[in-house]
């Protein structure tokens, strides 16, 4: 399962990029003890370490909220931008034009993405920005102390708020109908799956939405609430067992492939996600199927987790814009300012 093949004589404490796990860590978390978000931050660190991704090749983004604070708590060596409430997508969209070879990791929450930022959330999907878009989804506003979010279930009761009378927004469905090219759901209480999905998302060249149910231990961790550890543990229905295989380890594929009901999806960098279907015949490349299983899960009160949909055929945003090979932010005056004779031609055009 771990992709980094040991190399003879190599320092066992460093990965193939020559970095230790410490090189991927961030500042100590100031979130609550037991917060699902911390667990996700840890999996981000591990996933990147195991994938040998250099932190300088990653840019972190977030909006506002508890979840949006978390990029401070991983990848100190990566650039980060903690932007405005609900506006992380636009900042990330512009910033990733600076150097199209960089990978974005955006961390948002259900308030940040499904309420104030719903417009930007949906539009970044249709633009296929090269960003892993993590929604740390707990159904509640934590930083303002426990109001309902747009993903809170109808009928949810919170201490100061009473009962939620509105229908919830489903992050994955919204992403899917907005033409996202990678949609997955996971549960912070299932770190192995979170990590495997993170790895697959990082290898996806385009927008990759990870809706991770991440219980709020302070304001919404009731036994009967959808966004709680207890409920999640009892009701999680994994769609498939998922393994991520790094591109350099293709040799390992043979064995895994031998099992029945296995689907593999080759991602842009040549890596592969191996999906062992738990439900017969589920096709992760079918939007129709994805919507169907989500609808079914809602009706049966399941927390359906796993890779719901992936489309590796669409170019990402910067590719669509046909940019020069060099990062745009390394271009110089010679590349950017037209020559004086060009202005003569312009002036001649001005009647």
């Amino acid at each position, binding site marked *: 399962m771990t992709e980094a093949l040991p190399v003879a004589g190599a320092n066992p404490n460093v990965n193939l990029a020559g970095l230790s796990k410490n*090189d991927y860590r961030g500042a100590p978390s100031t979130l609550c003890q037991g917060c699902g978000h911390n667990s996700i931050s840890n999996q981000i660190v591990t996933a990147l370490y195991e994938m040998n991704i250099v932190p300088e090749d990653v840019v972190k983004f977030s909006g506002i909220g508890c979840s949006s604070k978390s990029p401070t708590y991983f990848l100190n060596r*990566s650039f980060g*931008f903690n932007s405005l409430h609900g506006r992380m997508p636009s900042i990330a969209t*512009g910033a990733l034009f*600076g*150097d199209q070879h960089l990978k974005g990791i955006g961390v948002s929450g259900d308030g940040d993405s499904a309420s104030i930022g719903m417009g*930007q959330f949906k*539009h970044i999907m249709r633009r296929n920005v090269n960003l892993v878009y993590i929604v740390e989804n707990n159904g509640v506003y934590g930083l303002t102390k426990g109001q309902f979010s747009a993903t809170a279930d109808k009928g949810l009761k919170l201490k100061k708020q009473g009962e939620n009378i509105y229908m919830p927004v489903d992050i994955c469905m919204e992403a899917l109908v907005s033409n996202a090219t990678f949609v997955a759901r996971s549960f912070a209480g299932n770190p192995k799956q979170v990590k495997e999905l993170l790895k697959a998302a990082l290898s996806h060249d385009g927008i990759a939405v990870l809706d991770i149910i991440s219980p709020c231990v302070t304001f919404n961790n009731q036994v009967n609430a959808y966004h709680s550890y207890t409920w999640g543990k009892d009701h999680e229905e994994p769609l498939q067992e998922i393994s991520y295989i790094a591109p350099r380890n293709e040799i390992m594929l043979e064995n895994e492939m031998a099992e029945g009901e296995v689907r593999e999806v080759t991602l842009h960098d040549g890596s592969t996600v191996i999906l062992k279907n738990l439900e017969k015949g589920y096709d992760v490349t079918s939007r129709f199927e994805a919507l169907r299983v989500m609808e079914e899960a809602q009706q049966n009160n399941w927390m359906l987790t796993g890779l719901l949909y992936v489309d590796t055929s669409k170019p990402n945003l910067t590719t669509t814009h046909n940019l020069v090979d060099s990062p745009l932010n390394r271009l110089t005056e010679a590349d*950017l300012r037209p020559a004086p004779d060009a202005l003569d031609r312009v002036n001649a055009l*001005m009647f």
Partner: protein
Amino acid sequence: MNKIINEFSITVGTVNGSGSSTANNTILRAIFKMGIPVSGKNLFPSNIQGLPTWYTIRANKDGFIAHNEQRDIVIAMNPNSFARDLASVTPGGAFFYADDIKQPITRTDVAIYPMPVKTIVRNDANVPSDFRDHVANMVYVGVLAQMIDMDMDKIYAALDFHFKKKQKPIDMNFNVVKAGAEWAKANLVKKDAFYLEHMNKTDGLIMADGNMAGALGAIFGGVQFVGWYPITPATSLAESLNDYLPQLRKRDDGKHTYAVVQAEDELAALGMSIGAGWSGLRSMTSTSGPGLSLMTEFAGLAYYAEVPVVIWDVQRIGPSTGLPTRTSQGDLTFTYFIGHGDSQSVVLLPGDVYECFEFGWKSFDIAERIQTPVFVLSDLDMGMNQWISKPFAYPDTPMDRGKVLLEKDLEELKGIWGRYLDKDSDGIGYRTFPGNKHPMSSYFTRGTGHDEYAKYTEEADVYLKNMDRLKKKNETAKKYVPAPVLHPVKGATVGIIAFGSTEAAILEAQAQLIKNHGVKADFLRIRAIPFTKEVDAFLKKYDQVFIVEMNRDGQMAQILMTEYPQYAPNFKTVAYGDGMPASAKWVREGILAKYEAKKAASVSKKAAPAKKAVAKKTPAKKSSAKKVIKKAATGKTVKKTSRK
């Protein structure tokens, strides 16, 4: 009848969406090519088709081509505005109208010229029936050309330009022009005094609109990212970028050194632009007032997070529906103080299309140097109308990318640096941007709560120190923003301050004030906030300073009062915004209404004791001017048709 040569205005009243802009631009361009100073203003409603719209053209041999209220020649093509158009003609003027409009001619003091527009078009076998409406407006071009001696070769040249040398439409339109002219020659008797004659006053000049100029300037400034959202009157700025970037930044490999993204709204437009600016790109957006309102939170973030980005605000009137297609200078204080908490933004104020181009590139240098959002405030009149201009000038300085640390710089520093450290005591730190591979290159960006090394903190003293440093950047900016332009007159006793597109009207008013009223005023056109030392020096000189602007509350005056309270008692606000471009008349009357002759006379004596005081003013005229302004302030219609 004495001929009036190269000194009159033409107003064309048409139905919006009837394709009259080709005809009107043809007249404008032909007069321009005849060497006569000319301007054209499109006074259009917020509507695609159906409402009345007017286009005014002013030719003036002395170069006074600001908008004016005079309607010497009126061409009426719209039955719905016919009566109003006829009533508006200046006595002694000329009235051309499409003769299918059967309405009473109520004037005997103007020359009346019916034009058989429909007959002429129908008789032209080369005009397909579905094109008749399109080319009908060319009839009045032809009739007018014949009656005022407009050069047919220049009309052809204008059409040749307009249709990009496509022979079929050129011929179709020009034939109708010719038919109109021939009909007029055979059937009309000249009864008015207006004539055009060739001059050489536009030699070497160009004609362009401010939005296109701003876009071209941005391209020569090396723009790399544009996030935008459609809004009148700013849309054509982004569209011009889309038009010209592929041509001017063409590469052999066909790849792009830029990206233009139409966002889902103005929030995202500025958000993307800030992201790109943060990431090291020359980044911009263009919008108008309502869009800027939506951008406010982001603008404040960019100020505090110190992200270079250029924001064009092509000003117009008001939120929502109403007068969105009318010009204004109403966003000045909003822009200067934009964002919550304390903020003072750098605001550039181009005065014409030449400066739209210049500030188009210069704004990037300033934004990257100061590491802050830079606002460029244009307006609808400057942005969307055609203006005569000197040819655009190639940037005279290399690009200033500001304080940036790349890998080699960080190696020299052994990785020790602080994003918000005021190393050079100018308030500006050094920045890095994503893609830098040095392990110490990164930093974490947020709004306010950070120390000099970009680490999170909520400590009071650290916050205060940071705020003081941000303030210091404002001082530093004064070294980089464009200085004001002074238009002095000999023996001036009072000062005029203005900004933006009102310059032409003020220069005309300045001349009229001397000639007809003996009022001598120096005129300083401010081109940027923060104010540079020249502004202080100018204010110091006069005990009457008229601050002229197109808004209700006198926003420039408000900012000047805040920055220079010591001079505030001398300020006289001449603020008026009805959506029309500034005219010399309202500038002049506004100044005269507040002008204190005695005060000026004493200044004049002090300044030149040997000479006679010249500044005199008859009380009667002063009070009438006052009345006009008062009327304007109470919302009643100001009579615009009277001559001077």
